[in-house]
């Protein structure tokens, strides 16, 4: 039984964790949340270390030092790489849960099989399946996001894929049940469950494309939390259960938000293999798009009274955030009301665009959610689409043959005029033609987002100096 002092410390930690998340409701108090979290963690670790059973100090010190050695560089990655860092840390979380579950199983087994009660076995089986599948699944997701060479970026699909995936998971679960019912007779199944869970994690992520990453990362976040909960059940530790449940519910809510923002269900994301070039896309007749020069666009922007910039993952790829900030400064100085319309699934993880724009010093009041900006879009003079594609495709509203039909979009087409910066006319991740580009008042600015916005800035600053004289 855990001593009372340690229990008290765990209670304080739990309360601090709840406050920590509570303070995340506003950017003004959010940093306080981090301090509360750190304090909770220090209290929890400190009180665990004073427990009498701890003797291997050298091992603990070594692991902690290594943890710092890897953790500090991981916290310094560029913000465009935050999605893969997050996926990587989900995989570490899953690995820790899996290893602790494995260790506990063999420990109890060797100490005496009477330790392996049904409840404990249920918890251990849940912990290792969740833990190891989160480990390999998140590792795959991180690899895809980092664009590691030997991991296919495009979704990989084959016939009977879902059948194989679900089959593998079912076999693992059946083995788990056998193990729970009779741990002594079926002990040999334990390693097989681990292998199946590891394999399932990989196969689950293989068919998933870049546009689905925000949902998948959130879902893996949830799994990582749940594996911590299962660990809490195994170790009879309520702090683990509460902290894990907070993480699990956070991942769940984010996944729900992401799914809603794409008008898709969990099963559809996990088993639907979005992102293959859809049939029918080729049958679209050749339509022409209108292009505009940066000089012309700069003039129109200068005369506008309200501009909404719609960023997408392409902005992050082109590293155009700082150029956008310059554009924002120039236009604001000129009296133009500039806002940013953020689609929930823009980028590769929830809230990705907000962080990138905040890094470029855009005040957060200017970052507006899709639902808040859509009613005003008709009054907007210019919508400037930077590296976003599917999230501004009007086909989602009316074309029920389109794969993205029903997905909520930012109504860039309703603005009085729309500029879309794009490298080429290639369809985006989902392989769908974007009707917006063919709309009457849409003009394309072809080129690299960073270069095009740089040009716009140059034109605008020249014009503005000209008018001041």
């Amino acid at each position: 039984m855990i001593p009372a002092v340690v229990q008290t410390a765990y209670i304080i930690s739990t309360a601090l964790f709840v406050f920590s998340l509570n303070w995340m409701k506003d950017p003004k108090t959010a940093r306080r949340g981090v301090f509360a979290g750190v304090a909770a963690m220090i209290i929890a670790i400190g009180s665990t270390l004073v427990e009498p059973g701890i003797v291997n100090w050298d091992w603990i010190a070594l692991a902690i030092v290594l943890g710092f050695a890897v953790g500090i560089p991981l916290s310094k990655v560029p913000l465009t790489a935050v999605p893969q860092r997050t996926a990587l840390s989900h995989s570490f979380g899953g690995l820790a849960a899996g290893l602790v579950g494995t260790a506990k199983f063999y420990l109890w087994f060797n100490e005496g099989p009477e330790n392996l009660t049904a409840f404990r076995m249920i918890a251990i089986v849940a912990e290792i399946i969740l833990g190891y599948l989160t480990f390999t699944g998140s590792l795959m997701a991180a690899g895809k996001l980092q664009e590691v060479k030997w991991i296919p970026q495009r979704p990989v699909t084959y016939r009977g894929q879902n059948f194989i995936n679900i089959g593998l998971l079912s076999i693992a679960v059946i083995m788990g049940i056998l193990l729970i019912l009779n741990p002594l007779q079926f002990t040999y199944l334990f390693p097989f469950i681990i292998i199946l869970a590891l394999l399932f994690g990989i196969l689950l992520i293989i068919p998933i494309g870049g546009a689905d990453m925000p949902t998948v990362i959130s879902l893996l976040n949830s799994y990582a939390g749940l594996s911590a909960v299962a660990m809490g059940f195994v170790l009879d530790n309520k702090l683990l259960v509460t902290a894990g449940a907070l993480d699990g519910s956070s991942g769940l809510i984010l996944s729900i938000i992401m799914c809603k923002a794409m008008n898709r269900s969990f099963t559809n994301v996990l088993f639907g293999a979005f992102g293959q070039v859809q049939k029918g896309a080729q049958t679209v007749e050749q339509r022409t798009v209108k292009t505009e020069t940066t000089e012309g666009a700069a003039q129109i922007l200068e005369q506008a009274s309200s501009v909404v910039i719609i960023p997408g993952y392409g902005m992050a790829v082109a590293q155009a955030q700082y150029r956008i900030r310059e554009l924002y400064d120039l236009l604001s100085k000129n009296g133009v009301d500039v806002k940013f319309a953020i689609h929930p699934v823009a980028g590769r993880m929830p809230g990705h665009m907000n962080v990138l724009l905040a890094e470029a010093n855009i005040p957060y009041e200017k970052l507006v959610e899709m639902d808040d900006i859509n009613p005003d879009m008709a009054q907007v003079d210019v919508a400037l689409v930077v590296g976003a594609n599917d999230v501004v495709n009007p086909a989602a509203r009316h074309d029920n043959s389109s794969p993205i039909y029903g997905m909520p979009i930012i109504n860039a087409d309703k603005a009085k005029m729309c500029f879309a910066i794009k490298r080429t006319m290639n369809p985006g991740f989902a392989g769908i033609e974007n009707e917006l580009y063919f709309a009457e008042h849409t003009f394309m600015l072809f080129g690299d987002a960073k270069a095009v916005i740089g040009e716009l800035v140059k034109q605008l600053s020249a014009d503005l100096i000209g008018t001041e004289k």
Partner: protein
Amino acid sequence: MFNLAKMLLIILLLNIPVFPAESSTPQSTDFFSMIFVFMLATFIGLGVITRVSRLLHTPLMSLTNAISAIAVVGSLILTGSDYPSYITWLGAIALFASMTNIVSGFLITDRMLKMFKSPSKASGTGKSKEDKK
């Protein structure tokens, strides 16, 4: 805020073992009170997380990441206790993984949150690196 306080009270009460160790047999684990804690903590989590600003979803994820690395507690006991060496090994790897998450999770969350500025602070200050080029 009142609701939050009430929820906290519930969770605090549930954390206190109602039936203190009657016996140290393996069966003594009170799973139902654990499930209770899990259920209530999930509800608190859902309540708190829905109110998190959408601006902060990326930092939220890295923060919850660090928080769920509380698994460090389990890894510490496994690594530190006098168990066979293979258990120590497994524990040490788990401890390393959790520590990495704690350190990088909290640091990167704070780093991102520092970037969120209100207009008064953001305007004029903090010229980007790119400006100098």
